[in-house]
Structure formats: structure tokens, C-alpha cells
């Protein structure tokens, strides 16, 4: 294990992804083709965008369990409005406003009311889904109206032969990276996540910064929702009560963003997303049964986490703070 001692979890997971890639490339004809690789990235680009959203808030030592519920409710509402005759742009703007408002409410609950993020967002997620189902739209699955067909380009179109969701994923990653690296509030975010008391003493406006984190998360989540809706011409609000949000957390944690906050960056999300993408794609090509796929997925994820625990043992700080 000494040999691996210098490796971070991100590198381990990246190695694992490469190894899997290599294995699939040798074993499965047709895996290592441009089209399949594009398809692979496309299929996980929504997961990746959500991963960036979750990553930001986890780096700030929070978590957002309402991410997927909010995404599906706000986009479903926007689609429902456009279906009932509202111009697409206006409907989308209303959905976005709703999303940002709930994001701000999340941040307020965490920063000012001081409810632990995991409980605040869990409750808000349930609330938003229930509220949406009861007041905002009637059906489980809301379709993209014919008048809004132009939206589909975002999810189904290609640019220079590359599917558009990949560009959007890249753009969100880039924006997230630049934000964390160069924006003042991005640096504050990391400082707050690393040590909230120290950040406060040095004069960082801690509470507004936390609110900002959740607003940003809801914004990126909304983008992911639009891409989802555009790529399948509908929004399935059942996602809100599925385990999808845990897949997102998995991508984040797997990539090496510690739940104790302050660690990692967008690169970790990309690596985590790629591993999941390679796994899913390879298993679908091999036509492995769905339930067996879950077993394999679980085992590989556990392996990555176990390796990380062995190579990077808990230090004093994580021992004191706990993981979450």
C-alpha cells in the first residue's frame, strides 16, 4: 500500500476508470469507438451537471438532498405552464425563479435558522415535491408541449458532431471551476467549508455565503433539469422520490470531495462521473441484467472507498468533525 500512498482518491478512481476502460476496450468490440465514447459521456452528462451542483455545496460543508426534487418540480412546472399556453421563455423564467427562491430558502434555513443541512434540505425536498404535485402540475410525467419543441435541441441536438449535453456539462464544469478558483465568493465557499469558525474570524461573511451556495446549487440543478427534459421530451417527477439524489452524492464522494467539506474541486466530480459512465455503458453493452448491474456498481464503489480509507487514513481533523 506504500506504493499507493501518494495517490489521492481522485487518482485512484481515475485509475479504476481507466482500468475498466482498458478492460472493456479489449473485451468488447465497439466500446472504444468515437461514437460510443460520445454516447457514454452524453449519458452521464446530466448526472455530471448535478454532480457539480452537489459538489459546490459539499465543498462548503453542506449537502443538498432537495436538489433532484427541486430540479424536477421547477422544470415540470415550467413545462406545465408552457403546455397551458404560456410562451416558453416566460415559463422557463418562472421555473427558474421558483428554483432560485427555494434554493435561497434552503440557504436561509441552514445559515440563519441553523438547521443542519441534511435535515433542512431533506424536508425542503419532500415539501417541494408534494407542493409541486398538488398545486403546480397534475401528472407524474409532464411532456414538452409542441410549441416548446425548440427546447429539445438542448438535449437532442449536436454541435460539430458532438451531442449538446456534453457541451453543457463542460460549460457547467468550467464555470464551476472558475468560480471556485477565481471568484471571491468561491474562495470564501471553500474557506467556510474548511473551517467555518476560522472563516468567520477572518471576516468572511459566512451566512450570506452559505445562502449563495444553495442558490448556485439550485441554479445548476435547474440547468440539469432543462437538459433532462430536453433530452427525453418530458420531465419525470418521480425522479424526486427515486434514489437519484444518492447517485449524485455518490459521484461527488467517489470523485474524492470529502463530506467533511473544504476538500476537492470540479475535477473530482468529472472523474467520479466518468467512472460511473464507463461502468454503466460497459454493463449495458454486455447486456448484464439490471439487478446484477446494481450489485456490480455497489461493489466497485465500495472498493474505491475502501482503497481510499486504507491509503488515506482518517486524520485528526476528520476524526474530530466526523464525516457528516
Amino acid at each position, binding site marked *: 500500500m506504500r506504493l499507493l500512498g501518494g495517490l489521492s482518491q481522485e487518482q485512484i478512481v481515475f485509475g479504476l476508470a481507466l482500468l475498466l476502460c482498458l478492460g472493456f476496450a479489449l473485451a468488447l468490440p465497439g466500446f472504444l469507438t468515437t461514437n460510443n465514447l460520445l454516447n457514454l459521456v452524453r*449519458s452521464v452528462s446530466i448526472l455530471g451537471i448535478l454532480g457539480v451542483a452537489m459538489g459546490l455545496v459539499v465543498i462548503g460543508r453542506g449537502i443538498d438532498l432537495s436538489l433532484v426534487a427541486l430540479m424536477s418540480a421547477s422544470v415540470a412546472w415550467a413545462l406545465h405552464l408552457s403546455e397551458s399556453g404560456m410562451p416558453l421563455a416566460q415559463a422557463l423564467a418562472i421555473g427558474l425563479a421558483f428554483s432560485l427562491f427555494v434554493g435561497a430558502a434552503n440557504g436561509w434555513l441552514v445559515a440563519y435558522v441553523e438547521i443542519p443541512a441534511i435535515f433542512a434540505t431533506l424536508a425542503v425536498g419532500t415539501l417541494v415535491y408534494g407542493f409541486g404535485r398538488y398545486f403546480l402540475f397534475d401528472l*407524474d410525467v409532464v411532456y414538452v408541449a409542441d410549441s416548446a419543441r425548440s427546447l429539445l435541441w438542448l438535449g437532442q441536438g449536436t454541435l460539430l458532431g458532438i451531442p449538446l449535453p456534453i457541451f453543457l456539462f463542460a460549460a457547467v464544469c468550467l464555470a464551476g471551476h472558475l468560480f471556485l478558483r477565481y471568484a471571491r465568493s468561491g474562495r470564501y465557499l471553500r474557506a467556510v467549508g474548511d473551517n467555518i469558525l476560522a472563516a468567520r474570524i477572518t471576516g468572511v461573511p459566512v451566512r450570506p455565503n452559505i445562502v449563495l451556495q444553495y442558490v448556485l446549487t439550485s441554479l445548476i440543478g435547474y440547468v440539469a433539469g432543462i437538459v433532462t427534459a430536453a433530452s427525453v421530451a418530458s420531465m419525470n417527477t418521480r425522479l424526486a422520490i427515486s434514489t437519484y439524489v444518492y447517485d449524485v452524492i455518490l459521484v461527488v464522494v467517489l470523485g474524492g470531495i470529502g463530506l467533511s467539506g473544504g476538500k476537492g474541486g470540479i475535477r473530482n466530480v468529472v472523474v467520479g462521473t466518468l467512472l460511473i459512465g464507463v461502468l454503466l455503458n460497459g454493463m449495458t453493452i454486455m447486456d448484464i441484467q439490471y439487478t446484477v448491474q446494481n450489485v456490480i456498481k455497489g461493489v466497485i464503489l465500495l472498493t474505491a472507498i475502501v482503497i481510499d480509507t486504507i491509503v488515506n487514513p482518517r486524520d485528526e481533523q476528520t476524526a474530530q468533525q466526523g464525516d457528516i
Partner: protein
Amino acid sequence: MKPSKTALIAAALAFAAGTAGAQEGIDDPTRAPYYESFVGKRVAYVPVAMGFDLTEGWAAGLKEALEPLGIVFEIRDPNWSTDAGAQAITSLISEKPDVIVVHNPDVQSYARLLKKAEEAGIYVVQVNMRSSYSTDVFVGADYVGMGEQIGQRLVEKCSPANGGSGKIAITQGVLTAAASIYQMQGITNVLSQHPEIELVSNQAADWDSTKAKNIAATVIQQHPDLCAIAGFWDVMDVGTAAAIKESGKDVYLLTQGGGNRMACDNLANGTYSEVVVYFVPGQARDMATMIKHLLQLKQPAGTTKTTLFTPLTFLTKDNMTPASCWDLPPKS
């Protein structure tokens, strides 16, 4: 002659009295007991979840048929949670409604509860997805037969003898759902006799369109000469259709559902190639009829087992009419 004359007069009088009675109308002797047998009865409906075309359509149909008769119709919505559904049925067993209409999420989960409900004297009607335990009534598609018909369609479309590549893919919903299990049985029955047809992918997408899309995209990638995809639900297969459209390939998409307007729209615009329809308003009517039947017979629950398979229609762009699909009633 005398006695016969009296008889004639008597007969004439009786006739006059009879016609006089007929002019005022006579009461239908079955009417009173018919209406009496429904007054104050309760029917509880436990679908997998409300909020999608099938369950909303059944609820609307049952409501329309039962409420005017004075039957109380109530909905317990477990919203995709099997636990919540089991709890709803458990509490219904102690509340003792007269009928429970249940839509099973899978073949096992509710089996024992349904038996208990019948033992408690509650009639149990199952709709579309059956439990491994048979109750008073099952109304729904004959999924094994449906699978066989779909298998035949796939063979017709894709057999190399008919100019197809012979390669097909299947996207199921949840593997344990009755709709998936029985239907696979039917498809397998047919495909086992047709070795020229190759099933290149058989995956489950959890009734979710995004998963269905990713699966279809990968399969088409691997098998550019794929001939057809059979999907198990039209709502989920908008994802499959998106993948086919993006690939630019000519893949025949055979899906299925309750025949909501969305299915016809998507046939018309070429999203689906063919939809197998079990007509939801018809199923609702079948259920309502069986409930009326049970309430009038007043036999103990579980005495008889009736299965009513819903007739299937294979809809394509060419054979569909405006009446082929139905619309959800606007919410009041």
C-alpha cells in the same frame, strides 16, 4: 253460451284493467333491490400511484360509474411506495370497506394482504397488474398473450425472411412487475421457436425515460443494424424514441400503454411506430360492472374468481382514428 258470455265479459274487464295498468306503467321489480344494494357501500382504490394516465383514467371511470349510485369512492395514493401501499391495505382491512380495488406494484408484495382482506369479507378487485394471489376479480391485459402477440409482431417485422436484420431489443419496466414477468414469458414462448431472431439486449429501465434513453442509445450504438425495440410502457418509451431519433437509424419502436391521447399524438408524429393498447376506460367499465355484480350477489368475498382480459388493439399511424385514444377528464 251463458257461462262463456260471462267469461268473455270477465276477460274483457280483466284486459281493460290490464291496459289501464300498463298506461300508468308498472314498476321494474329489479329496480329497488338494484339501487338498494349500492346505497352506502364503500369502494377503496389503491393504485401504485396517482398522477399518471392509467391510474387517473381508472379512477375517473370508477368514480363516474359508482358515485351516482350512492357508492362512496375513495382513493389511497401510496405514490410509488410499496410500503405505503401495504399500510393502506392493512388499515383498509380494519376499516372494512365493501370493495378494494388494487393495482399491484409487483406479484408478491400485497399477496398475503389481499388474502387477509378477502378473509375479512372485503371483495378484492385487481387491475392490470396482478398479484400471485388470485382474488374475486382480475381486470387487465393478458400479459402472456400480449407478449406472444408482440413476439409475433417482432418476428414479422424483423425476420430475415421478411428483410429484417433479425436483431431486436427489449426495454422492460421493473423486472418484478407483473407486466414485465408475464410478458417476457409470452415473448420468450415465441422467440424460442424463431432462432433467426436475436435478442441483443434485454434490460430494465425502472419505468424511467432517461434510463430507457441511455439503454437504447448504447444498444443502437453497438448494433447499428438493430431492427426493433419493444418497450413495455409508452410513457417510459419517449426516452427510447429520443435515442432512436438521435441515432438517425430506422428502428421500429413497438410500445404499449393505456391508449391515452399522448400515445396517438406520438404515433401521428412518428415518435412511436406501433402501440399495443389496453383501453383504460374499457377496463374501468369492466371493473365497475364486476363491482356491481359482486355487490348484488352478496356472496362471501373470495367465493368466485373471475378474470376479465382486456381486448388489445395494435395501433399504428394507419389504423388509428380520433376515437382510438382517450383524454383525461379535466380536474375539478
